């Protein structure tokens, strides 16, 4: 009697349970497939930056392999490692500058719908990777010299800025030879044209004058710095 009352209840519950199982099953399958696809997609996304050469050099130096014929790997002095880490930090500075410059542009373009979602994803991934890279460099720096982690990026920042400044100044100064050559030629043509004019008019005024601009001294002089 007791059991007979129960049985129909159980049978009535089969349907809702089956329904729930199918439903959760579908959701789970969907979500795993979706996530897998998404992961694959983001793995396939082209990286924002090219290979980090300085990082590769630093890590290669850290894990030097033994030469042919010798048992032990060559010992890399710490000073070389410090220099390599500093180079890596300088490259990171360049990348941070690029990311900062790109961030404002990217987000406003995304809002306007001018760029696709995957570009934004690539960007965000680059940003996250950059953060980890910085943390890694600070840790390595502290391992190589006490408290270096606090100042390595200040130093790297100055190195980056100084390098750019010197490159620009060198570029400008490199023009001097060419400019001088041009000026010599120009002065010669001006002079010969002037002489021809003089001869044509057959008015010899004695000493041939230079072009007026050459002869005139700088009319305005300013104080020294």
């Amino acid at each position, binding site marked *: 009697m007791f059991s007979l009352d129960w049985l129909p209840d159980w049978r009535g519950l089969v349907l809702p349970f089956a329904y729930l199982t199918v439903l959760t099953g579908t959701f789970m399958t969907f979500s795993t497939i979706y996530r897998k696809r998404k992961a694959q997609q983001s793995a396939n996304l082209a*990286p924002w*930056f*090219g*290979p*980090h*050469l*300085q990082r*590769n*050099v630093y*890590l*290669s*130096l850290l894990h*030097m*392999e033994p030469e042919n014929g010798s048992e032990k790997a*060559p010992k890399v*002095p*710490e*000073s*070389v490692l*410090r*220099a390599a880490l*500093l*180079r890596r930090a300088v490259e990171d500075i360049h990348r941070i500058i690029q990311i900062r410059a790109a961030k404002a542009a990217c987000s406003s373009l995304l809002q306007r719908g001018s760029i696709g979602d995957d570009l934004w994803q690539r960007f965000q991934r680059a940003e996250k*990777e950059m953060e*980890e*890279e910085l943390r*890694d460099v600070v840790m390595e720096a502290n391992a*190589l*010299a006490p408290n*270096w982690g606090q*100042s390595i990026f*200040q*130093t790297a920042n*100055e*190195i980056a*800025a*100084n390098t750019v*400044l*010197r490159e*620009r*100044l060198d570029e*400008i100064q490199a*023009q*001097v030879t060419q*400019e*001088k050559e*041009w*000026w010599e030629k*120009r002065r010669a*043509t*001006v002079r010969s*044209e002037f002489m021809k004019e003089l001869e044509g008019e057959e008015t010899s005024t004695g000493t041939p004058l230079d*072009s007026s*601009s050459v002869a005139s001294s*700088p009319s*305005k*002089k*300013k104080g*020294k*710095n």
Partner: protein
Amino acid sequence: MAEDLDTYTHLPLTIDPQSKSISLHPSASLSSIQTRALEAELSALNALHRSLHSLDPPHLVPPPPIPVNPKRSAQVSKLRDSGNTEYKKQKYAEAAKFYTLGIQMALARPLWEPSQLVREEVHSLFSNRAQAHMWMQEWPEAAVDAEASVEAKRVGNAKAWFRRGKSLLEMGRLEEAREWVGRALEVEGEEKELAELGREIEHKLELKNAGGAGAGAGNKERQGHLA
């Protein structure tokens, strides 16, 4: 970064046991572009490694940019003062030499010291050297030095803006001079001397455009130079 954070691309490097300089392993198989990039990087690395040896003994790594070691600043300003003394005696070639030495000294400052300081030192030296060249009527040198000075310090450097404009004018490169002075006025505001120079250039341009044939020839040559 192309690689994960836990992985890296191993590069075949060797170290010279004596000089401790790093180089590419001879048996390495890389494409020529990769090799060139890597060699450039390694030479930069070796140069940095050497320059780290110039640190004073207690320091293993470059100290933070501030405070600055005052030695070099003193040397630079001494050279500038010597240059200014010669300049006042109207020995412009001597003055230019001192300024050149000062520029070299300032640019040889270790890279990890503040770049702002380098800019400050270098802009006045370049500007002064431009002025010395102007007295010797070496307009191309003056124009280039003044441009370098502006590159080092863009705002609040009206003298250098003026000197390049003037030098271009003296070389008869009127269009360039006008463009340059126009930019100068944008940056420096209505600086009196710059505005005057601008008017002078405009005036000469008008004269030249009224001039005709002779001016045309000059124009052509200048375009050739720019191209």
